[in-house]
């Protein structure tokens, strides 16, 4: 990335268009924000009640001690993957189409990790003792169990959250300087502090570019490691349907799949409401939907191979687990998962649909639903039907689980809406850089 030249008159519409999202706050925005805040308050109140009453109100009873909380935890960790993939891996691969969506994807990563992390505390019950899981010298002589995948989660997610926040912030700095220069009062003070004295000098650009490159290198393995570790929460046990070697890459592909779908589900309405069609256009949709198609096939491959090996293994418990997934009491979840994640995305084989925005919105929403159900299938069907039929049971999410589940969407939505109000949803400086490149190409300058 070269330092951009001084602003040209033709570039000012980029500032204007992108910042219109921050300026153009409507009553609809506040209604939506209000709804999100309400759901967060409801979830918070439910959680307080759960602390008072006990985890039983969250449906924790024999044989299900991992229910909708863990399903939703895995769902949000998965959503968090698109940001790092788009910002780090696609950056290293020099895929230019990432520029229009990387900022919002990075923000979603940070918000999704924050949402997911809460579920670990909600799930274990006594959230105020969560620090027990941190390995530090203490007078009680407590030490963590490094062989517990829950402990691995702690390291994986805290590392991922740290890198994601740093990545998000470093990328924001040049845009924060633009905001600093056009704001007044308290806002100016805050933006000035956050912009860290950015002046856009060539030395600063050089350091910035180098930081982004090195952070990309650090973040790339995290895309693989975080969801692999989450998958091992299941795969390390010998519960039928969980103990599978393919889980790590399969979870990573699923996470990227759901993360991309969420970026589309969120950004399509934002683009429409704030008139950003020029910045997020057919070129971006074409590439993103192709990516969805690729990851859909990887997920479909894993579904197929899981069934095949369960049958081939000859292990009766495995065979039964997979038979019951498809034809047992939770058949609806399994077929919803397959139809949403494997069948429906096949529509993107056709170019016409890869650029048809309403279709993309509908399909990406279905993928979000399908990916939540994927985790539901994995967790619930296996736990309700373990080795001994005498201890089989059934599970239905309780009102408390559903309220906290809805609250997680409210929390994510609330953070994203606030982000839209205070920060540019599209990276302004990167769009300007791209515009300069495009103009140079149009003039025959090349690189």
């Amino acid at each position, binding site marked *: 990335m070269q330092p951009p030249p001084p602003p040209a008159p033709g570039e000012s519409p980029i500032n204007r268009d992108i910042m219109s999202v921050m300026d153009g706050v409507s009553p609809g925005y506040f209604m939506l924000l209000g709804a999100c805040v309400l759901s967060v308050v409801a979830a918070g109140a439910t959680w307080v009640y759960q602390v008072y009453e006990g985890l039983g109100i969250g449906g924790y009873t024999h044989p299900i001690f991992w229910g909708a909380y863990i399903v939703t935890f895995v769902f949000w960790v998965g959503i968090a993957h698109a940001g790092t993939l788009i910002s780090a891996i696609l950056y290293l691969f020099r895929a230019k189409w990432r520029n229009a969506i990387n900022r919002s994807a990075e923000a979603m990563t940070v918000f999704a990790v924050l949402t997911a992390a809460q579920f670990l505390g909600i799930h274990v019950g006594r959230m105020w003792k969560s620090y027990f899981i941190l390995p530090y010298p203490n007078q009680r002589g407590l030490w963590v169990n490094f062989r517990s995948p829950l402990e691995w989660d702690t390291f994986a997610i805290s590392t991922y959250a740290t890198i994601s926040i740093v990545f998000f912030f470093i990328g924001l700095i040049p845009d924060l300087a633009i905001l600093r220069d056009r704001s007044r009062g308290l806002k100016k003070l805050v933006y000035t502090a956050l912009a860290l004295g950015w002046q856009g000098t060539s030395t600063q650009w050089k350091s910035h570019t180098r930081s982004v490159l090195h952070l990309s290198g650090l973040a790339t393995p995290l895309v693989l490691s975080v969801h692999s570790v989450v998958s091992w929460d299941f795969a390390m*046990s010998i519960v039928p349907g969980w103990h599978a070697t393919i889980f790590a*890459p399969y979870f990573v592909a699923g996470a990227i799949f759901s993360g991309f779908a969420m970026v589309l589900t969120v950004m399509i309405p934002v683009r429409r409401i704030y008139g950003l069609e020029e910045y997020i256009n057919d070129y971006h949709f074409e590439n993103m939907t192709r990516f969805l198609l690729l990851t859909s096939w990887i997920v479909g491959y894993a579904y197929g191979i899981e069934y095949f090996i369960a049958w081939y293994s000859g292990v009766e418990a495995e065979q039964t687990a997979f038979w019951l997934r498809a034809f047992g009491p939770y058949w609806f979840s399994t077929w919803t998962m397959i139809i949403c994640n494997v069948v429906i995305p096949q529509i993107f084989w056709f170019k016409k649909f890869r650029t048809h925005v309403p279709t993309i919105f509908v399909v990406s929403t279905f993928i979000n639903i399908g990916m939540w159900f994927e985790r539901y299938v994995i967790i619930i069907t296996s736990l309700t039907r373990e080795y001994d039929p005498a201890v089989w049971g059934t599970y239905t999410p309780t009102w408390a689980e559903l309220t906290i589940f809805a609250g997680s969407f409210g929390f994510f939505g609330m953070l994203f809406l606030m982000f839209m109000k205070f920060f540019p949803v599209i990276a302004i400086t990167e769009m300007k850089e791209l515009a300069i490149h495009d103009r140079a190409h149009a003039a025959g300058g090349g690189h």
Partner: protein
Amino acid sequence: MSAAAAYVDQASPRSLPKAPAVVLGTLAGLGLIAFIVGLANDPATAWRAFHVNYLYFGALSQGGLIIACAFVIVGAQWPGPIRRIAEALAAFVPVTFVMGLIGWFGGASYIYPWRADFHGVVEALPWKAAWLNPARLAIVDLGVLALLTVLTFLFLRASLRPALRGATATGFAGRMIESWTADWKGDAEEAAESARKLKNLAPLIALVYAFGWSIIAFDQIMSLEPTWFSNLFGAYFAWGGFLSAISATTLLAVLHRNYPGLEGQITTDRMHDLGKLIFAFSIFWMYLFFSQYIVIWYGNLPEETQFFRDRLGTEFLQATWYWEGWSERILGEPWVRVTLFAWVCVWVIPFWCLLGQRPKKTPWFLATIASISLFGFWLERNVLVWPSLVPEDTWAFLGSVQVGVALGFFGLFGLVWLAFARVFPSLAVPRAD
């Protein structure tokens, strides 16, 4: 990867280079002799060596086409002639099909324990008869290889047709060029038609490769230990084929950097990009290996641990680990040294040696690392097959027959590549205009 103007090339037929052709032809002949001698004295060893090399070169050659497919799918503009080098690896795909036929009809009873029942596994595993039976395997696996042969032919034809226009050659190559450029519709129209066909074929071939070679891995490697199963194994094996093809492409690209017409084409940037691919994808290979190992180690179920026990010994399956006497305890068990050496070649050396920029941009160094990676994958393929069949004999893969068969395959593979790349020729050079 750096964008560039659309790369347009022109096929430039040459004669077969004499010295390499003689060496490779000699190796192929030696391999045939070794195989025949092996069949006469120890057919089981000869067929097992054949099986390993058929799998190694088969996955590698198909992986070459997958590289070209990946370039098409992502619209990569950086590779230039690199794509042609990778495509030429796929010339061996039809040979793989023929080898698959020979191996199945000639040596199946020496290769598959469930086929010959020499370990009594058929009685032990009656439920597997539905899958592990000769007719099913022949139809599915040979069907996959046949389908991939047809798809490979269609891809190569669509890809090379625009470059072959105007090329002249004599004999078989001349007739092939004539046939592949028949009914010419005009340069622009043919280029557009080629791009359209490739865009349709590339994802299809990638899917057939992923599913097809996974099934082949389950059938032709996993089933050698009939009670073992791992649902990641298919993807792990197919990825190895793809990565070995990247290493082969890198090695051939470096060797061809002074090839007439390609001077200045195998640039430092292109070598850097190829080095990055080996580096990154070897990390992914390690990730797949570890994902399989850690789940099996943690679960500690005998039907799963047997695979690692036969290759890495019992020490890698212990709950605790300590340094004292590690060399005797670990390296003393059968196959461990070979397995660890393969791992060092496939991951440790490429990872540590290609960390910086300069090693990736230094031709001799990059070629050396690519060669080590290729050798490592050959060892790894041996480690996947032999310990299932002869778990106690570490050096079963290293007899004169085994090495002879391997050199024979190498010679044949090299000859096919040279003939297809240079004489036919798929190795096109940039158009002068």
